[in-house]
């Protein structure tokens, strides 16, 4: 396992996990989440190629109510 930061929380993920694997483990639908990996936005088709490395910072965002 390796440790990464997801939405500011430390999380352990299996070695060689992709961003798509991470979303799957969190039961998140990639169609309704925008992914930022080390401050770079990752487009949906690239989620399954992008592999996580120790210490990576991932932000998973979506739309919420707001004014």
């Amino acid at each position, binding site marked *: 396992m390796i440790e990464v930061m997801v939405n500011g929380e430390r999380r352990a993920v299996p070695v060689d996990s992709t961003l798509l694997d991470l979303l799957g483990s969190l039961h998140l639908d990639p169609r309704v989440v*925008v992914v930022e990996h080390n*401050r770079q936005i990752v487009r949906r088709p690239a989620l399954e190629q992008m592999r996580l490395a120790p210490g990576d910072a991932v932000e998973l*965002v*979506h*739309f919420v109510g*707001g*004014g």
Partner: protein
Amino acid sequence: MDVPFTIGGHTFQSRLFVGTGKYRSNEEMVRAIAASGADVVTVAVRRVPLDRAREDGILHHLDPQRFFLLANTAGCSTAEDAIRYARLAREAGFNDFVKLEVIGDQETLLPDVAGLLEATRVLARDGFKVLAYTNEDLITALRLEEAGAAAVMPLASPIGSGLGLLNPFSVRTIKRRLTVPVVVDAGVGTASDACLTMEQGVDGILMNTALAAARDPVGMARAMRLAVDAGRAAFLAGRMPRREVAVPSSPLEGMLD
């Protein structure tokens, strides 16, 4: 007959834009938005809660085919943050519009105009249609237009205050001097505020708390819809001049001796 209401090449049916925050329930929000007649609804960008990821997001309640989702950068206090949020919002894939907020003070939530101008410049160059939330200062509004804003959004009064239109003169002046649409954002508390705002000739109004915090949000949404229509119609009709003396409405002739 009114002119079409177009921002950044997109024509909108309603001049009333509504927010989606602070409702007591999603069900009440949906009914209020329907009653408002709005086609533009604002949303915020936030982290997905990882512990309850299976819960419905806001898009479960608002059909993106029916509503135009206008993402905001609420909560951002630097140009850099606002640009980051805008790019994340665009990646959601609905449109390239953003309601740009760069907040300069937490007590008043008034905009940081230097940061706002910088972020507007960067995002406009990057292809965004920027709707810039600003104060009611003409010079800032002019600079935002020069910076590439697709619309300028002066406040009526501070966000969530419900104090109504504090400076009709400034808002009217901004509308008169700008070429891009002017949509008043924030501060409207009740229907008369919305009507008075539209009577200044602005192109539209965005509101959230006035609906969400009303005792009956659906009833207030209906009232706001009527008020925006009434204010717009009154503006188009052209009000009578103000006079400091009375002028009788009934004939002076034919009075009895």
